[in-house]
């Protein structure tokens, strides 16, 4: 039953080309094109400066490590610019997937022949695939960025990453993925409760914004929250995310954290994934679907 719902949702989303383009391809494409342009302009400026100073434009011998593309993508959710934009576009896609059947009044077509939990889990599955695809396409875009750097500046290419570095990148990548899914699931809960696409988009965004504000040290001090404590970690899943990342790779963020925060952070991330999902399932189970 879940597989029927998943297959149907995936089919339907594949025909919604605008949503797929904006959520999966737009930001990576922008990043790749911007990267190419950035390197070309940099090269041109450098050449001009060198020519003006009468210096030869010799190629840099330091190789471009393409493995950095993997680390870059793994850290996606920590990057306010690209990570934030990816999240916004994923939430737009999430609002379409999660609230579309209310808007188009199509629940009554599908809910009579599949159980409600499967219908919701099918949608969640599709959003997970979409988030995964976005990260993969961004990885490709990151390779384009680093590859272009090598081509434009005529630098050699290398690919080196130790096993430990690869494991760290994988774990951080998983954390970033969970963070995107987590916001999507908050969108799901809001979509089911309000039956509104707009609410499914803007409530998680507002929540994310509020959490980022509350995570600023002066606010935390004002609320008498300690970054290591249960209250701060449970209230602010963004902080839990940063905590886990810092514990995985010391120094990767500026969060002053100790190992005491590990379990609160794990519990926080898990709770912020499971509670919206379970809440949405429970709400949807008893929902009157004759009024959409």
């Amino acid at each position, binding site marked *: *039953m879940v597989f*029927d*719902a998943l*297959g*149907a949702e995936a*089919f*339907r989303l594949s*025909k*919604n*080309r*605008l949503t797929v383009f904006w959520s999966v391809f737009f930001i990576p494409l922008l990043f790749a094109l911007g990267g190419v342009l950035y390197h070309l302009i940099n090269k041109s400026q450098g050449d001009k400066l060198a020519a003006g100073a009468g210096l030869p434009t010799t190629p840099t011998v330091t190789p471009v490590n393409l493995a950095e593309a993997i680390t870059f993508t793994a850290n996606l959710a920590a990057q306010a610019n690209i990570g934030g934009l990816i999240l916004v576009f994923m939430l737009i896609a999430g609002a379409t997937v999660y609230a*579309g059947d209310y808007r*188009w*009044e*199509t*629940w*009554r*077509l*599908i*809910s*009579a*022949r*599949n*159980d409600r939990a499967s219908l919701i889990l099918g949608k969640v599955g599709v959003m997970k695939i979409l988030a995964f695809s976005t990260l993969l396409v961004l990885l490709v875009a990151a390779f384009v960025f680093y590859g272009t750097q090598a081509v434009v500046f005529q630098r050699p290419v290398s690919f080196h990453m130790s096993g430990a570095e690869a494991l760290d990148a994988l774990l951080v990548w998983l954390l970033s993925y969970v963070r995107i899914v987590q916001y999507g699931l908050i969108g799901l809960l809001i979509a089911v409760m309000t039956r509104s696409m707009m609410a499914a988009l803007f409530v998680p965004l507002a929540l994310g914004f509020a959490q980022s504000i509350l995570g600023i040290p002066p606010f935390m001090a004002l609320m008498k929250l300690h970054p290591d404590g249960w209250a701060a970690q449970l209230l602010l899943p963004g902080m839990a995310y940063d905590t886990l990342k810092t514990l995985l790779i010391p120094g990767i963020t500026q969060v002053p954290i100790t190992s005491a925060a590990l379990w609160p952070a794990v519990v926080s991330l898990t709770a912020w994934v499971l509670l919206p999902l379970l809440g949405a399932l429970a709400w949807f189970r*008893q929902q*009157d*679907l*004759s009024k959409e």
Partner: protein
Amino acid sequence: MNAVIETRGLTKTYGDVRALDGLDLSIPRGGVYGVLGPNGAGKSTLFRILLGLIRPTAGSAAMMGGPLNDISHMRRTGSMIETPRFPPYLTARQVLRWLALEHGVGATADIPHWLARVGLTEAADRKVRGFSVGMMQRLGVAAALMSRPELVILDEPTSGMDPPGIQEMRALIRSLATEDGVTVVLASHQLLEVQRVCDRVAILNKGKLVREGTVSELTSVGERLRLAVSSADQVLAVLGAKGVRDGEAVLAEVKRAEGPALIRALVEANVDIHEARWVGTDLESIFFTETGAVQAPEADHGV
């Protein structure tokens, strides 16, 4: 009786309003079953409960011999509730493909066949955002039928259709029952349509069942012989209290067995009989009598 739908004391309340009030209904397998009633009678509420869209406040219901929440039973049912709507970016063919996958018949659904059967072959690759209400209705019916269900529930299946469309839909519904062996349960406001297409009907009013039976059973009650004659007065004299003037004709309240003798008597009395035919009470009259709805001076016969 081998029932496909059975309700016992089915009740649904919305605040103080009782949309269904202890409904006991048994819909037999086979044929076309019509559910009639004025607005607010509980038809749509009944269908929505049967299809699991809403939960009853009290009572129980079974479909295909199983409880309502049993998906394996529900999967043997096709449905269309009111005018269906679809994601606007999909074509008609994609809508059916999507719903076939959703309903677990992605591999077996013969989509071109069902598009043809509802007359949408030419529009198959057009996006549904440009579809008329009638076309949406046809697509909804195709979606309800493509999994080859044993039971089909259709709420106002001809709503928004033009007269040829209504005629095609009527033929499709009849063929589903007679050729495909599907039990069709439909709700409609178009009483003449229901009389033409249904084998049995139930009339609901204020959430309760007020009449149930085959169309012929219901309409034969109060059956009369209508006689178009040269002299109505002469006939009325023969019939006495059993005769009622109906314009230039006379309605004779006699049993079928008494008909030939009456005609012989009138012929012997030198009355010219231009036409003699049995007329029953039509479904529309029964509907208005049973539901207490006010009949408009020129009632819409629905076609």
